[in-house]
């Protein structure tokens, strides 16, 4: 059985080993990000897809001229902006995970998937209908209990 060498990026943030602000600053300055962030990104299929699209567009650009060249230059630029956005948003999400002290079971699972780079699966795990149901039930419960407590404490 192979040993899991993946280090939790969320844990590194919690431990102060990775500063999200600093990493985001690096991304915008096109500097190399932390090695663990790089490893984490390497696990994301969406990120890999963006990288592949950039490589393809760059290769196409090398062969093109005139108007097509202008179009492809813009395409490469836009894709690189999208790449930066992706990394920034992924890091902000990691930071949001790290700030949750006691995650729910659903969030714990989502976190695990996120760490594996399976962001889409993590997203699918948090089914919006469930979240809304939970919210509705909790809001009703809180409203009921607060009203009951109020009645009780007012001596009625």
């Amino acid at each position: 059985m192979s040993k899991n060498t993946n280090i939790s990026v969320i844990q590194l943030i919690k431990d102060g080993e990775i500063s999200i602000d600093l990493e985001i600053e690096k991304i915008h300055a096109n500097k190399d990000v932390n090695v663990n962030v790089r490893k984490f990104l390497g696990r994301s299929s969406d990120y890999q897809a963006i990288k592949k699209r950039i490589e393809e567009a760059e290769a196409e650009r090398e062969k093109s001229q005139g108007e097509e060249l202008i179009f492809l230059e813009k395409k490469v630029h836009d894709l690189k902006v999208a790449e930066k956005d992706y990394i920034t948003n992924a890091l902000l999400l990691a930071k949001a995970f790290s700030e949750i002290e006691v995650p729910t079971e659903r969030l714990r699972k989502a976190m695990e998937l996120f760490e594996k780079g399976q962001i889409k699966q993590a997203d699918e795990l948090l089914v919006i209908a469930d979240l809304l149901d939970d919210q509705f039930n909790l809001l009703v419960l809180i409203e009921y209990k607060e009203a009951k407590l109020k009645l009780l404490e007012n001596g009625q």
Partner: protein
Amino acid sequence: MDNNHWLTSITNKANVSETLLEVIQDTDKLKVEINNISANDGNVNIELLQFVSTFSVHQQLEREKQLLVSKLSKETDSKTFQELSEEYERKSTEQKEFIKEVLLSANAYTQVRSTTAIANSALLFFSGDIKEAFESIDAKELESTQSKLLESIKIRLELQKAYRSIEDNANEFQIKGQLTILNYDIAEPNDRLQKAIFYMERGKISASKTSNKEFTASYSFKYASFLNDHFAYDSAVKNYLDALEVRKTNTFKNQESNEINIATILNNLGNLYKNTSNYKEAESSHLEALHMRRERMHAGEPKSFDNLAMSYHNLATLYAEINETEKVENHYLESIALRRTLVEIDPNTYLAELALSLNNIAIFYRDQKQFKKALEYHNEAIEARRELCQHDKDKHLSDLSVSLHNIGIVYMDVQDFEASARAFDEALVIRRALASKNPVVYNVQLANTIGQIAALKNKTGQPQEAIKLSEEAIEIAESLAKQNPVAHSLNHWVLLQNHATYLQSNQNYKDSEAYFNKAFKMFSQISSPYHLNTKLSILNSMTGLYLTLRQKDKALDFSAKAIKFIGNHQEEHFEKLSVADSYSTFAQINEGENKGEKVKEAYAQAISYLNKADLSSPNALVKAAKIYLASALYLEKSNFFSEAISNYKLSGEQFKKLVQLGKPEHNYELGINYFSIAMCHKQLGDLVEAESYVGKAIRVSEKILEPDSSNLFKDLVDYYFQFGFIKKKNNKLIGAEKAYLESLSFAEKSGAYPYPNATLGSIWNNIGNIQKLQERWTEAENSYLQAIAIRNDLVKQHRENYLPSVEAVMQSLVEIYFKNNEFEKAESLYKDLMAILEELVPKNTHRYLPNLISTLNEFAQLYLQNDDYQTAEHYFNEAFRIGNNPKLITDLRSYLNLLAETQLNLAKFYQKNIPHQERSIAFAQAISNTLKPHSQLDIVKKYLEEVNDVMEYWNESHIE
């Protein structure tokens, strides 16, 4: 109920002293007192005993004990006595137990949290009524209260659980939102954002329902930051404000931490308002954050210094953006002072922030033209950034290049071009290296530095180098603009314009025109109001280019476009000097079109803008001086000499300031200004002022005299020539001659007056004039002969142009011969003169005919003086013959005077020659007849009187 309040009530109502109550409250102390009572060793707290004695049980026991004591005193039976004694002991013990119980109960009352029932019971108890105290607490009621309390606790526990669950739910919505942003199955980024906002908004509902207001406020803050990161500024402001309200209206366990959070929200709001141009709100938020951070700054907490420094820094950048310049400096300085302190504590963490503030204040000082301070702070920032690079090169190298680039610009401002080149070169090396790794980010900076070096090369007279570098910068900028027009078009546009300017200064007008046209075509794409001045500069440059190319229509077109462009925008956005330049150029172009009023009005506009312009830099002073000069030249040409003098003086003031700024070379232009003022005064007839200003022109020009200043030598020839001329007019003949000789000397030195030369001829002629006035005949003759020789040689080159000048100097010379009776020289010269005049008269009769007549007269006089009557008569008659044709003469009065003079000479001649008496009379009648029709009766009269004298002479003594 508050325990203190209840105890106070006891002391007041139950007559229990505070000292006693203190003993009862203190359990340990009370136990000691109880032991003392039990031991009955006399060491008893009397007040305690007095308190217990108010209880009825105690009183009953005391009474029973007294009764037993009474019985014991009377009892004689030993057995009964024994029994009574034991009874007394039991009562005593019972009483002690009671005292103990009472005191412990009293202590118990003071130890429990009071309710209304407990308070009432306690009051009864401390008043000594145990039964009432007991009965006041109803056990059933207690059971009921207990049940309600248990229910309440249960609900509270359930609610706590629900609150935690709703917080979890809020977290799940937040994470769902942030996951959605990364869900690339939703193709459109905006759709992803809208969905994410929907989820996070749902999460906010959940977060608002928890009793944990720390969670509620934190959620709104995080949500606001998310919205800010995704450019949803209005919603971000709303959520920051929500977080602020929660924090301001609730009590938190850690109030200090809450205040820190409030200040952070206010700081973020301030930045957000600034980024959305809501400057008033931005200032108010930042100021509130600043006050809070100042209030809670602790010497031992570096973070509190850091936060305060950040607030000062943010306010300074805000004030810089809204041009509240007087506040910018102070706020940066406060921020710098705090960051210096922090650097002493922890340089690793705070040096980068200090460097940023130093860089920013340096930029501010440069904008304020305080170049010395700008250099000082840039240098400190560079030093800090070099140190940072030693620890983490990757992180700080780019910042170091920013500082080097910025200081290079300031060195250019102060014209320390070597230092500027060094700084730019170092920045360039860094930026080339950075751009080779990350072109997307660093190509922008690379293009900027290359562009600046091009500007420097152009300024230091290396236009070819400038053009080469500028081409490289344009290539990079063009590529960036293609990728992202919004971000990079402006830079590309500015570089195109600069390149066109370099080509223009390198006289490559064709390419310059092409680049200006490229820049002009991009005009409409650049909409920022901050670049109106660049646009105006393009229009002005294109006008200048077409003027150079002598394409007047195009120049006029672009000049008119510039004026229209100024009119279409608010004045405050423009640099006043550029507007003045536009109006001045417009005026200059229209000067040739004879549009007098338009030109005068345009110059007036130019001057009015100049008066409002910032003229603190050397370049601005040069430009302003040239505009004042152009206006003055126009006014002088239009004969508005007084107004011209005012503008020449203003132009001169700018050049004088440049000289005072350590640029002595501008004495050259200052000299020209003084000379022009002198010429205007000369025109106004104020020869004293004229002389004074020519003197000034000479003095300032001679300050910068170098052995090879050929242009200046040429100017000094003119200055000294006019100096001589004016001095002569002011009757300062010695000074005048000296001036002419200086003029001659500079003419020789300059090498610009190769023989033969008209100027040299004039100088010799004028020197001769002065010598003649001083009756230094020989010197005058020599000077005139020099002039004649030069002019004769010029005649060989261009007869028509120079023949009149030969005639003029010959007239002067012949006068000397005539006066000195040098017959032969005079005769020879007269003959030459007459030959010249006979050639000149047909070409310009009205000018030269009088000269011819007077010359013939003088020639006749010469013969007369030498008793050659026949030749004299011939020339007098010749003068009369040629002159007796008034139609040829435009200035009738002068002509008639001359004619009369001729006749008079002739009459006088006849007077001396008896055989010609009749002729004399005949001529007298003839001249009378000639003059009468022209109503020149005064001359006729004068003449007839003279003739009459002749007649009388004849009648009296010479009648044949």
